């Protein structure tokens, strides 16, 4: 295809970037640049200008400005990596950092040169699951220029190219991830490193050496837990022939390889070394950032202490309720067995009687032992303290009438164990119409997957049932005939139903989707939600299930909002498509009221199975009152229990990595699922729906 002319390009870019253009800043220079590109790259540019513009027009402008120089220097993969990185920076650090990445395309061109190179994006999911399997506690994975961890997130380099093959580069990624995981598991940060190094004349140098010694210590731990990985590591070392290889086997380091070696041994060893010497180089050597790790660890300890005390209070209550249970003055005690290399084995007893705490509590105990090596006594004081809130019921007067007519819902106050009457004012609103072209471009983006999706759903629908013993039908039911014959011989009446018939099983099912429109979904989450709805609608059209879609958000109990996207009885029309496209992040997430409202809407629907599926990105939360935290979780849970009572089955799809801390409590162990990568949300939602209803 011939390249587009400057004038045509200018017109397109002008339309796409209009909100950030002015009489002094026109699309003309951009068009002149893009005009120099071959047609394929022009199309690529326009496509991404449009996509990026959905998130931020200025970013789209910056991209269009950089594209003419950048794209010829990058292959498609590198170009996409470049764009994704820029948008990622934008999402997290804002416009300035984001547009900076667009200007630094040369970095990506450089990295594209090595054919064996492995990129972070290719391995992130596999490695995240890998460390989740190693476990200990949940860890996030992210990329950063050098490898390091604050013990909550493992930061891995964006690309590894030093290896001789792709396998080798992947292995290096895996080793880095395992070593960073091991820093948490085997307590690198369990003492204040900066304080411990303060007496060195050059603490920064000492820290670099400490990092090296810790790698030796942790490799020994890893060799005990993961001998296979240790073997791969040894092979890699031998082949890559790095200098200083023998120094790891230096006898001076022997104490670090002892089973019970700890970070103190590494620190003690520092005093015996000549720190002026160069630290041996290793491809998997990252950096230590003690201050970040200390902050993360302290925040975690506070959080987990609270969580543990609350969980123990709960356990205590349950034990007392069990008839033979505990007396008021009994204490929790723990015994920690360290000899288990799968993680410490923590036994919990109450008044000497062993307990089998639920999984979240065991994970908490394990995580605390990782940080402290033990469970201090004060952590074991069950927190039964009750806070008085001193707020009364809501009454309709204190809710501004100017906001239009509202419906009022009660809210559950878990501390006082009763409902606050008419506490929340909820209004049903129309979202602004978005551009239905979003639907088209989503379908285009996922074209191959949509075909597969439809086929899968077709299968679900097409599950032909062979109906036996029919009055009329396509075929003779041999079993029935034989039985009839037998009946007849036995002197009974001859049954009439002797045929089989194929029949599509009636799916007597209605599903409501409740979509999180809170401010925290801004950016890619919102886009993923909308894409998910587009794909889902496509699939549900095939299936013929009845469905409705509502968004929810709001701010304070006086302004809870439900956005109507599609009612049950509404066809999947152009208007609905526009509303899906128009779903935009709003404010907060007062989930209880939203659930109560949608449950009420369900009342008029006649279906054997009623399913309420929530798409969410985090905990219930609201502005400036106590909805955040336990109160909101308990109210949401109560609203879900009410829904259950009304014959509705709730299910939650979330992308919040902390979901396991609260979702099982709200939805029950089996009624939620975590999607660990937002980019997968669109395809996964339809998939989960299929599994849920088959």
């Amino acid at each position, binding site marked *: 295809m011939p390249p587009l002319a400057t004038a045509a390009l200018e017109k397109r870019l002008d339309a796409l970037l209009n909100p950030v253009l002015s009489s002094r800043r026109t699309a003309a220079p951009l068009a002149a640049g893009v005009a120099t590109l071959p047609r394929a790259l022009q199309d690529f540019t326009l496509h991404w200008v449009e996509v990026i513009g959905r998130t931020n027009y200025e970013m789209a402008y910056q991209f269009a400005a950089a594209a003419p120089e950048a794209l010829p220097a990058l292959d498609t993969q590198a170009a996409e990596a470049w764009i994704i990185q820029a948008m990622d920076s934008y999402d997290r650090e804002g416009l300035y950092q984001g547009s900076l990445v667009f200007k630094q395309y040369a970095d990506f061109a450089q990295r594209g040169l090595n054919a064996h190179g492995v990129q972070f994006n290719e391995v992130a999911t596999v490695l995240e699951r890998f460390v989740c399997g190693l476990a200990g506690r949940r860890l996030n994975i992210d990329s950063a220029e050098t490898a390091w961890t604050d013990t909550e997130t493992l930061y891995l380099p964006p690309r590894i190219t030093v290896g001789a093959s792709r396998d080798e580069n992947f292995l290096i990624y895996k080793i880095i991830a395992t070593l960073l995981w091991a820093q948490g598991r085997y307590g690198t940060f369990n003492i204040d490193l900066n304080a411990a190094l303060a007496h060195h004349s050059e603490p920064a140098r000492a820290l670099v050496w400490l990092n090296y010694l810790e790698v030796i210590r942790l490799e020994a731990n890893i060799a005990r*837990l993961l001998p296979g990985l240790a073997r791969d590591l040894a092979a890699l070392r031998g082949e890559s022939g790095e200098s200083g290889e023998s120094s790891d086997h230096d006898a001076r380091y022997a104490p670090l390889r002892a089973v019970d070696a700890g970070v103190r041994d590494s620190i003690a060893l520092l005093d015996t070394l000549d720190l002026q010497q160069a630290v041996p180089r290793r491809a998997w050597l990252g950096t230590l950032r003690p201050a970040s790790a200390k902050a993360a660890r302290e925040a975690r300890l506070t959080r987990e202490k609270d969580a543990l005390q609350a969980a123990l209070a709960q356990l205590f209550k349950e034990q007392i309720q069990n008839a033979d249970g505990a007396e008021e003055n009994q204490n929790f005690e723990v015994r920690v067995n360290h000899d288990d290399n799968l993680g410490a084995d923590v036994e919990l007893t109450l008044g000497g009687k062993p307990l089998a705490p639920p999984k979240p509590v065991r994970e908490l105990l394990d995580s605390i032992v990782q940080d402290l090596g033990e469970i201090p006594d004060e952590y074991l004081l069950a927190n039964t303290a009750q806070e008085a809130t001193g707020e009364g019921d809501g009454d309709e007067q204190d809710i501004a009438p100017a906001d239009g007519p509202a419906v009022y819902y009660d809210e559950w106050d878990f501390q006082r164990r009763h409902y606050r009457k008419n506490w929340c004012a909820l209004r049903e609103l129309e979202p602004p119409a978005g551009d239905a072209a979003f639907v088209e471009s989503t379908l285009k983006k996922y074209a191959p997957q949509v075909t597969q999706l439809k086929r899968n759903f077709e299968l679900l629908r097409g599950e032909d049932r062979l109906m036996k013993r029919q009055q009329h039908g396509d075929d003779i039911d041999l079993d029935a005939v034989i039985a009839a014959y*037998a009946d007849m011989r036995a002197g009974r009446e001859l049954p009439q139903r002797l045929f089989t018939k194929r029949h599509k099983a009636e799916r007597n099912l209605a599903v409501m989707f409740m979509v999180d429109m809170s401010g925290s979904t801004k950016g890619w989450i919102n886009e993923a939600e909308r894409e998910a709805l587009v794909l889902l609608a496509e699939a549900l059209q095939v299936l013929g299930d009845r469905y409705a879609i509502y968004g929810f958000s709001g701010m304070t109990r006086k302004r809870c909002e439900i956005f109507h996207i599609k009612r049950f009885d509404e066809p999947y029309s152009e208007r609905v498509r526009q509303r899906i496209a128009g779903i935009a992040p709003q404010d907060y997430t007062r989930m209880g009221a939203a659930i109560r409202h949608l449950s009420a809407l369900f009342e008029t629907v006649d279906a054997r199975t009623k*399913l309420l599926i929530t798409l969410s990105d985090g905990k219930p939360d609201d502005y400036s009152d106590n909805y955040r935290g336990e109160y909101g979780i308990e109210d949401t849970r109560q609203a879900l229990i009410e829904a259950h009572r009304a014959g509705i089955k709730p299910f939650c799809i979330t992308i919040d990595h902390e979901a*396991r801390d609260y979702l099982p409590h709200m939805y029950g162990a*089996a009624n939620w699922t975590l999607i660990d990568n937002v980019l997968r949300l669109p395809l996964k939602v339809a998939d989960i729906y299929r599994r*849920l209803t088959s």
Partner: protein
Amino acid sequence: MDASTSTRTATPLQPEARLITHEPYYEPVADEIALFEAACDSRIPVLLKGPTGCGKTRFMEYVAWKLKRPLITVSCHDDLTANDLVGRYLITNNETVWVDGPLAHAVRVGGICYLDEVVEARKDTTVVIHPLADDRRMLPIEKHGELLRAPDSFVLAMSYNPGYQSVLKELKQSTRQRFVAIEFNYPSETLEAKIVAAESGLDAANIAKLLKLAHMTRNLKGNGLDEGASTRLLVHAAKLIKRGVAARVACHGAIAEALTDDAEMLRAIDELTSSIF
């Protein structure tokens, strides 16, 4: 024997009451055996709850042996009808013959009827077990004009995996509330090692590695896996390794592929395996 009788013996509708003569290998995990026996003595039906592959079927075989009662197992599927359980008329030699279904058969011989994965059966089938599952302990066979009263030795047991996510596969309250529930879960590490060793004959070092892998896949439950590796999968992998299959290959086939189809999850499990072995 003429042709029609041989057809008759081939029909699945005439189950052989299986009397287990050799002691099945079963490692008790808690007090489940005593609980089961007490329920039987009190003539209360039993519900075995737990994930797949954690020893429910083996447990049934064991208690059937211990109680010296025939065991009749029905694997439930979504075409299983009430007639399949109760029985029907057949014609042989120009005569009509009533053939008991497995449930009626178990009642008649006073055996143990075990309905495996009961939620898979059609919803209406569970209704026929209701009169058997409360203190009436009766099975009405309408077709045959018969009302079977269960002898004291009859036991009704069924299994159920509460981890299923499908909303269509939940056990109705009216059914579940008739049963005493026994909860099954993966055995403790020491016990599991003992079981895998007994079942496969594999050496302790390799078994320890398998258990490590199992533990790691269980960490992944809810993080991309619906279930972690069950004891059954470990036994499978152990048997393959014992026969000389390379550990990485055995674990890929017997564990990873059995747990997931997701390419990245498969890769992650393979990476865990290769790190351990």
